[in-house]
């Protein structure tokens, strides 16, 4: 399964567009990470725990989008976009969407 945020894939042709697919997840950070982040807030710099949390969650949203694409019989998702929205204090929604396609070797 190829994922791309372009609408033209080098070396491949798009045989068929199957329509929009999407995946989302809502995550909250847990207390342990929050306390560590609290210390880090004094010293500044990267909050590694949060960086991991966000990329894990984004991965999950991507997987859900891919599951939808697989159901449609696609072998690729193109024009992928991400969106992040905070829905409540300490919770964020991560959203991924794109167009499911059937790709052919050119």
């Amino acid at each position, binding site marked *: 399964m190829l994922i791309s*945020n372009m609408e033209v894939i080098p070396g491949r042709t798009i045989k068929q567009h199957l329509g929009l697919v999407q995946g989302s997840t809502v995550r909250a950070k847990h207390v342990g990470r929050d306390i560590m982040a609290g210390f880090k*807030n004094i010293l500044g710099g990267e909050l590694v725990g949060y960086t991991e949390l966000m990329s894990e969650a984004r991965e999950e949203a991507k997987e859900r989008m891919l599951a939808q694409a697989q159901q449609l019989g696609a072998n690729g998702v193109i024009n992928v976009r*991400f969106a992040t929205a905070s829905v409540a204090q300490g919770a964020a929604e991560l959203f991924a969407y794109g167009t499911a396609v059937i790709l052919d070797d050119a």
Partner: protein
Amino acid sequence: MLELIIFLTLLGLGYGVGSYREKNHYADLAVREKALSHIAVFDHKLAAEHDFQAGGDLVIGNVVVSSDYFKTVVATIKKFFGGRLRSYETLLERGRREAILRMKQMAHEQGADCIYNVRFETAATSQGASNTLSSVEVLVYGSAVRR
């Protein structure tokens, strides 16, 4: 009195460690940017006629950065008068450069030459209990292509 001591300790700690880390981060960024400078990054889409043979895979870089205590306090005072908040500017600049580097690193591992269609996104990941800015996530993504 005790509160004042705690406040000043945090302020000193934030200033000392925060600026030391910032200096190190800037030096580190410069070195890594040089090492990955062979990968060109564009924010437009692939032209109809191009000389790329393969690739097109999504590459992502993200980082959550936090301001230190000293900078947060300074920014809170400055917010009263308005104008430029330098401490947050440098924070976001560092975050964005770091995210771009992580994206480039991912492309480099795939043997890519260029990254197209790059998009940025910035989200405040927590408003925090302490009413000030606590952390910001910077996300950057694009598609890596090979010649």
